[in-house]
């Protein structure tokens, strides 16, 4: 005897696809669609400007531009420094803030404040504080350290992009720090206590127990921070030099020129930007899988 199987109703089978459709539509149409449209434009297909011929010319143009490599390097330098410095300071801050001491709750609350604050506000504050006639310079003068605005180090619109990096770090240190803090809290003190009974000193516990435990979380915040810093537009535009600038600024400048024919070049730079972040993402997934399998 064979038993008749009851069919799963169509509604039931389509439930999950239907639930996913709206969000996927947004990302596929707007985001991936935008990327594809951008890719076509960068390849010279831009009917609005009368261009319909596919070509790599715009990429060659973009890369051959003396500004491109300098911008790429500047962007990398800023993103890498911000990521590295933010991580170091954030891990340090998290290790302090996870302890309970008088004022620790308040300090943790204050530590969170930069998170929801827009980057433009961070830039605004950095200008007020670090301009050569800013508050820090005035405090320096009151303490007799600075005689005139010109004596205060010029860290805005500077070659080293220190003002840019300060703005980013003001936002990113709390971000990384709170992620690390959350990991530390979920790990609890037990692994350290265990290591201690096995003879590990304070230093050894930090190096051999704590850091390996928080590493996976730290690496994933690295990727987010790096990608974000890499692609941010307004901070380097506001606080950096106009040359050398960063890739997003350069891409947007080319893109916004009045003549539509310069758009493909801007788009080509933007696509390079996107490709770098995608490569970063893939590298990260590989790394994550590798560290999980060994």
């Amino acid at each position, binding site marked *: 005897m064979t038993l008749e199987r009851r069919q799963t109703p169509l509604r039931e089978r389509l439930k999950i696809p239907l639930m996913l459709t709206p969000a996927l539509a947004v990302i596929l149409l707007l985001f991936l669609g935008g990327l594809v449209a951008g890719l076509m434009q960068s390849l010279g297909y831009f009917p609005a400007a009368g261009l319909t011929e596919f070509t790599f010319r715009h990429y060659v143009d973009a890369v051959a531009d003396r500004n491109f490599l300098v911008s790429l390097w500047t962007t990398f330098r800023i993103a890498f420094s911000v990521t590295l410095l933010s991580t170091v300071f954030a891990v340090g801050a998290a290790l302090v803030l996870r302890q309970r001491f008088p004022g620790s709750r308040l300090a943790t609350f204050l530590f969170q404040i930069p998170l929801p604050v827009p980057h433009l506000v961070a830039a605004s504050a950095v200008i007020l504080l670090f301009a050569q006639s800013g508050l820090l310079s005035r405090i320096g003068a009151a303490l007799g350290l600075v005689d005139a605005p010109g004596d205060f180090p010029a860290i805005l619109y500077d070659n080293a992009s220190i003002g840019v990096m300060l703005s980013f770090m003001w936002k990113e240190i709390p971000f990384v720090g709170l992620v690390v803090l959350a990991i530390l809290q979920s790990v609890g003190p037990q692994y350290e*206590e*265990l290591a*201690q*009974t096995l*003879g590990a000193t304070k230093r050894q516990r930090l190096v051999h127990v704590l850091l390996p*435990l928080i590493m996976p979380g730290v690496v994933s915040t690295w990727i987010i921070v790096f990608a974000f810093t890499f692609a941010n537009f307004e901070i380097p535009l506001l606080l950096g030099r106009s040359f050398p600038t960063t890739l997003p600024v350069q891409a947007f400048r080319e893109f916004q020129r009045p003549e539509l024919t310069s758009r493909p070049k801007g788009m080509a730079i933007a696509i390079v930007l996107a490709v770098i972040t995608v490569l970063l993402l893939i590298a990260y997934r590989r790394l994550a899988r590798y560290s999980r399998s060994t």
Partner: protein
Amino acid sequence: MTDVSLVHLGRAFGDKWAVKDLNLEIASGEMVALLGPSGCGKTTTLRMITGLARPTTGDVLFDGSSVVEVPTERRGAVLIFQQHLLFPTMTVAQNVGFGLKMAGMGKDEINRRVEEMLERVELSGFGTRKAHQLSGGQQQRVALARGLVTHPKVLLLDEPLANLDANLRITMRHLIRSIQRDLGITAIFVTHDQEEAVMLADRIALMFDGTLQQVGRPDEFYRHPRTAGIASFFRSQNFLPGTRHGDVVSTGAGDLAVGHNVADTGDGPVVVTARPETLTLSNRAGGENGLPATVTSAIYMGTHTQVFVQLAETTWTVHAPPSVTLNPGDQVFVELPKEHIWILEDDSAAQDGR
């Protein structure tokens, strides 16, 4: 080979004492169970021995020397946690070798000792695996190996078997016991399970509410518990209050003659107890210490019939032969042989407080 002394050991959190004035001597190579319900201060005691918690009062001595000022990492008291806590980023071998690496031992020596210890816990060939690839029992054995490989002065185990299923628990008991004996290591383990304490420990130290209640060999807790609270923790259910006058205790169900082997409680209010398997039921008065009782229920248990009887104001359990059939309401006499009666201090006030 280290003996451990806990002298007036206490730890307070504000006004509340988690552990109060605890005195205990543990001989070298002995295995002692710290037994008690959860929250009785046994884990706090363990943490004070390791140095993870600082005693508020008293001292911890290893071989007669105070170790209170010795930091945990130099104390040589290894703690095995309930949640095996294998370092997730390390392999099994790296986990086991952790303590040796911390001590700065050479790679070859570490590998040799780790391999030896893995063999000891029957995990040869598992060295390259990661923690999440092991079963719960294997993880616990790795945790044990990791603790033992450093040759600790004292081995401390916090509910080591609590996270394992019943079968595994038995195997692990044997393994822990045999390794501990072979290495002659002093061991203290914490448990809330009296059966585990009885099967594993040389001696048991029972704690209630931060205070040591009774210390002794496992059988003493069954045969000669000090108080009704201790007896009921060891699953005894038969308690009959009465008043002692020398060798006679008068109870609500009648007078009982007691032997000379009972505790010297002195005259006054006491509690009489006897284990269910030492009692007999009879339908005639006049047997030894026969007290009239009413059957409330009888459950066939295979090897015996468990009979619940109303004895004065209390309910007693009696193990009758499996062939016995009794019905609720039957009038019987419970006979309490003199040599099996045990007299307890009346701690009903303390019991109510719990």
